[in-house]
């Protein structure tokens, strides 16, 4: 039988929302306080949902050790306690939580093979959350 499993992880990182292609006024109007030149930070909650058949022998969709190991190594290590603007993923893209969701999704989609990736959810604060399930992903 098919089940969905969701695991939550935590990342703390800083960012500044700013697009060089916009004027200073446009940036300020678009991003408000998030455009503060010195940046600011969040404790991000990352929820990873995978699905698959529950294995008869283990009772599992996938071994949590594999999922935790992959996320720690490939995602937490990469983004936690970093300035997102300085990372290669955001060299061309503004580090909004939408784009962070998509970047995390791509890493999982390319590298995690123990279960089917359903979606990535990131809560930037308790009031804001974002989800990406690969729609319109094109060539990852």
């Amino acid at each position, binding site marked *: *039988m*098919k*089940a*969905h*499993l969701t695991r*939550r992880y935590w990342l703390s990182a800083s960012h500044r929302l700013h697009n060089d292609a916009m004027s200073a006024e446009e940036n300020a109007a678009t991003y408000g306080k998030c455009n503060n030149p010195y940046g600011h930070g969040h404790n991000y909650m990352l929820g990873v949902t995978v699905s698959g058949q*529950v294995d008869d022998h*283990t*009772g599992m*969709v996938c071994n949590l050790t594999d999922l935790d190991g992959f996320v720690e190594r490939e995602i937490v290590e990469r983004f936690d306690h970093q300035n997102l603007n300085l990372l290669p993923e955001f060299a061309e893209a503004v580090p909004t939580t939408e784009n962070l969701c998509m970047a995390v999704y791509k890493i999982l989609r390319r590298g995690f093979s123990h279960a089917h990736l359903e979606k990535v959810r990131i809560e930037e604060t308790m009031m804001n959350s974002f989800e990406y399930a690969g729609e319109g992903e094109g060539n990852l």
Partner: protein
Amino acid sequence: MVYLTRKAEFSASHYYHNPEFTQEENRRIFGKCSNLNGHGHNYTLEVTVKGEVDPRSGFVVDLKRLKEILNHEVLDAMDHRFLNKEVPEFLTRIPTTENLAIVIWQRLAPKLTNAQLHRVRVYETPDLFVDFYGEA
């Protein structure tokens, strides 16, 4: 179609062990969860049912009846129990969160006559949960 979710909490102990595996395999696959003396969790259960709103009562489902079913089928059977030893389904199946969601679905689905079961979500901890939609 309207969806209604009812939450419940229960505390139970369990361990993961497959008698077909060697002791080393059990240890490698299940890690700390394979300790035969068991360990426990505070589980949170969310049961979501769906249906059309009854024009006379304004309900998707009679919550009182849903609560009785949850109490009888899940809480009486599992709360403050050792899942491996006291819940019949887990005498032969490993009580992972995945299987717990499936077993709870299988217990509830036949009892819910007026509304359709949509999802069973079981939180083992606040950072780990499983959803089961009754899919084969």
